[in-house]
């Protein structure tokens, strides 16, 4: 799934939630972050929830093409390792 918005925040999180639920039916949950350059805490929560759900279903969860800006944001929230795994640190 490719996200087409640049900025994801609390106003998007509900529709994003629905998209993630749909995505969870796929074999692997791979989210393309190419376009994204900003996220907020509610989105991070949603991503963490998706990650947890995927893990619960023994499915792969992956964020791809995460920009440096977003990586910085993840770091500032101390969720980079959780969401991206240690290789991105």
């Amino acid at each position, binding site marked *: 799934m490719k996200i087409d918005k640049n900025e994801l925040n609390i106003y998007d999180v509900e529709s994003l939630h629905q998209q993630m*639920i749909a995505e969870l039916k796929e074999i692997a949950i791979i989210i393309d972050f190419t376009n994204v350059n900003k996220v907020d*805490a509610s989105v991070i929560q949603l991503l963490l*929830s998706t990650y947890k759900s995927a893990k619960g279903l023994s499915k792969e969860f992956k964020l791809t093409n995460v920009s440096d800006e977003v990586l910085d944001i993840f770091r500032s929230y101390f969720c980079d390792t959780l969401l991206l795994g240690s290789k991105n640190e």
Partner: protein
Amino acid sequence: MNKELKLFYEDAQEQLTFMEDALITMQESGVEDESIGALFRAMHTIKGTAGMFGFDDVVHFTHIAENLLSEVRDGNVKLDDDMIDTFLEAKDHSLNLVDLAIENESLDEPTKELNDKLIKYFHSKMPNANINKTEDTQVLANNTAETAEILWHISFRLKTNFFKTGMDIANLLSFFNILGKVDKVVLVDANIPTLDTLKPLDGYLGYEIEFTSEASYADIEEIFEFVIEDIELHIFKANDTDMLKTLLEKYKDENLKDLLISNDFTALKKLDADKKVVVKKTKENTSSKKPQKKEKEKSFSLRVDSSKIDQLINQISEMVIENARISQRADNLDDTDLNESAIIMTDMLEEIRTGIMNIRMVQVGDSFNKFKRIVHDVAKKVHKEINFEIIGGDTELDKMVVEKISDPLMHMLRNSIDHGIEMPDDREKLGKSRVGKVTLTIYPDAGTIVIEIRDDGKGLPKDKILTKAIANGLIKDGKNLSDKEIYALIFEAGLSTAEEVSDISGRGVGMDVVKRNIESLRGTVEIDSRDGEGSLFVIRLPLTLAIIDGFLVQSGDTKYIIPLEMIQECIELDATYKTQMHGNEFINLRDSMLPLLNIREYFNESKSKTTRENVVVVRYGEHKMGIKVDELFGEFQTVIKPLGKVFKKVPGISGGTILGSGEIAIIFDIPKLIAHRLKDIKK
């Protein structure tokens, strides 16, 4: 409850009572060092002893309260009214914590909430600079406390509504880098649900942070200033194992402990090592700190099992009886030396007796001061303004009596405020002061202790009571009752369940129990009331219970004891009086009518051997009566012995005593005799 636990409980209760008294004193007459000392001591002592038992919740709470009090004592923090109110709340809360700890129960939600609220409040009042200088934290703290930099542990969880604040967590987190050095941060995702139950607009995130800084507690708290309502926040020194344990307990479900261990948090490493040490140190702390304490104990007191005193009183009683025999024997033998010794012995015994009785006597003020708190609380609850005063708090009364009378008094005070005193606005309309006045007066009177509760409220609704009593079949319609008799109806059990008459229902509820309690102490209660002006409850209680000064008289073949303190005078019933009587049982005593009670008739005694008759004038409350007897013998130290079941139903007898000759004398129950005579007159 084992012995140590019981001691702890009693001690905690006592300390908290001191604390409450001190707070009330300061509420009334301003802040003073001695009272602050009492607050500090209470928290400190409870913390120390609770530590020995491993009551962590109690230790934790009192520790924080103590820290703040220490600052107050050192003059770094000003104790204002708001803080006094909060400490009153903290006092109740501490007792609750102690109760729960002893019962081995964990804190329920409301208690936890209150606990957090109070702790947060105490923290917020701490001064910036001195936070790490409190003596006990220093003991608990490790070497880090000696340097200015402190390793803090900060923990927070977003509450559901967090995102509505619009605040950015990353921003909050970045502030820590400004204040000091962030050692460790870990995001707690345990509360984030899976997608199916996730509410994307709710806050779930949490963080645990270890952070080294010179910043104070308040500085750190300030970071969260705008979101403080929307997060659960804990800030404490990383070496404060008590706090850490509380935190771990609180977030048990999150497996916080494992998370902190896997992230190598410093605090966790110390926890296990410190576990034993903390308890030990707290223990040492209490014992070693005491001698250094600046403030001296106000007075030294000894805790003695009351049964030991009872035993002493019993033994003295036996000695009094034995001594009476010696006197008698000396009289019979006409032995002057023996007689003199016996008299000296009598005096000495009396002194010892008074001394022992005094051990049991306590100033009622110590115990009754708690009513101030109750009045304060009740008044607040019913939105009334009350000026409550205790007069005669230095009056002494048997401790047991004080304890037993407390509940009835509390009940009556509550009623006075709730139902007696009008709402402030109504009072103003009536031309009264907005502030209602309730007075509790205690004074000794003729061998009794009188306790009065007076209020300036609306008075008792006489008509309603009467209607209700008739409706309930307590009295017959058309029966003529005096005002006092009507008021006394509120003590009847039948009236207490009055539901329809809402206005008086409160006054009725439990009043029968109040009366029963008072009567079980051989006391009486009377009511007076004026419409619109207020009501007055008068309780009379006997002064002492085991040995009294009696006056020995004889009527017919039997000897009787009249409690000396109720006696006003003795007169000889001579011919002048007898002619005045015209066969009625009244005499004219200095122009006032005095009803007489003929003991010989009352107890169906055989005819008197002597022709002389005497009258002993007794007074109880406002009633006077003459007791017609044959002979007067004089003062006698009387040991009250209970009489058997046979005498239980005989009105007017409160017990018996053994005379020196081995004879039995009957002790009069003067209030009952007077009541009987008054009833007789009415007929």
